[in-house]
């Protein structure tokens, strides 16, 4: 075995062995890969500005990601199965919210840059407490996300899916929630005009996500 291959092997082994120790020390776990039946890690204590949410099997379901495959004669096939979640409760500014993630990993906390869409794990928050989770109540864990009128980030997820640690975030409010105020925004139109939410005060505003591609 060449020296470089041997050192690669030592590095990889050290990294794999160090992971459980790092997680128990409260270090940030990035891109936790887990398969069905991954062994749960002990629930950590919450650090400063952190919330540890205990997750349990849940009756909450959400639509899974649409998967496009190839069928007979190369015809496309479409498959969109419901995702089963584990969920827990979190209290924000006196309001209770149910928060859920898939019951099985991988729990990817970052997105692949070369993909046109975000590929990180989706966190669902039942903002209206009606037991349903439409797409707009799911958030990408690679971005700070909104619970009530506060922003949070996912700091760590147990590979076994029994807890997750959220950290309060200082980023400005983002994300739309039905019945709550739209976050302020600053956009630049193609004609060079700066647009903010306050420009539309007193009028209905329709945001239209589109593409001519």
């Amino acid at each position, binding site marked *: 075995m060449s020296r470089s291959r041997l050192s690669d092997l030592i590095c990889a082994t050290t990294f794999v062995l160090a992971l459980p120790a790092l997680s128990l020390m409260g270090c940030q776990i990035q891109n936790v890969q887990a398969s069905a039946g991954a062994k749960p890690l002990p629930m950590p204590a919450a650090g400063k500005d952190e919330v540890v949410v205990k997750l349990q099997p849940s009756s909450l379901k959400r639509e899974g990601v649409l998967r496009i495959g190839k069928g007979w004669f190369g015809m496309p096939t479409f498959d969109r199965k419901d995702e089963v979640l584990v969920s827990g409760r979190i209290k924000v500014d006196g309001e209770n919210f149910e928060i859920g993630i898939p019951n099985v990993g991988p729990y990817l906390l970052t*997105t692949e840059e070369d993909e*046109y*869409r*975000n590929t990180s794990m989706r966190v669902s928050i039942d903002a209206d407490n009606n037991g349903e989770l*439409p*797409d*707009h109540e799911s*958030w*990408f864990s690679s*971005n700070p*996300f*909104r619970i009530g009128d506060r922003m949070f980030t996912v700091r760590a997820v147990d590979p076994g899916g029994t807890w997750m640690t959220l950290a309060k975030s200082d980023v400005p409010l*983002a*994300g*739309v*929630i*039905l*019945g*709550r*105020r*739209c*976050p302020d*925004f600053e*956009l*630049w*139109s*193609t*004609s060079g*005009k700066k*647009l903010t*939410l306050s420009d*539309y*005060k*007193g*009028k*209905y*505003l*329709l*945001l*239209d*996500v*589109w*593409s*001519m*591609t």
Partner: protein
Amino acid sequence: MKGIQEKLGKDKLQVVLLSVDCGYGMDPKRAMEADLKSMTKQGVQHWTNVVLPNGMKDTARMFNLDGYGLTLVDPDGIVRGIDIYGGEVEALLSKGARK
């Protein structure tokens, strides 16, 4: 949408287009030109268009919107509809007008 806006007038309803073309690899200048061509064809070239440099990654980060569709914000800045389409917008607007 064009019909609804014409009916209500721009003093009551404003449309902001969020173009995600750059997310599919189109450069911003080309996206602006192509968008304008498409908007002109539909007779809405006077609408406000924003070309987002990272496409849907930007709409997800700013608004948690990860697909095409409309979001309605009322005159007080409260979100009234997410992921809605033409008929639903009209229904929400008429509901709002009755209040």
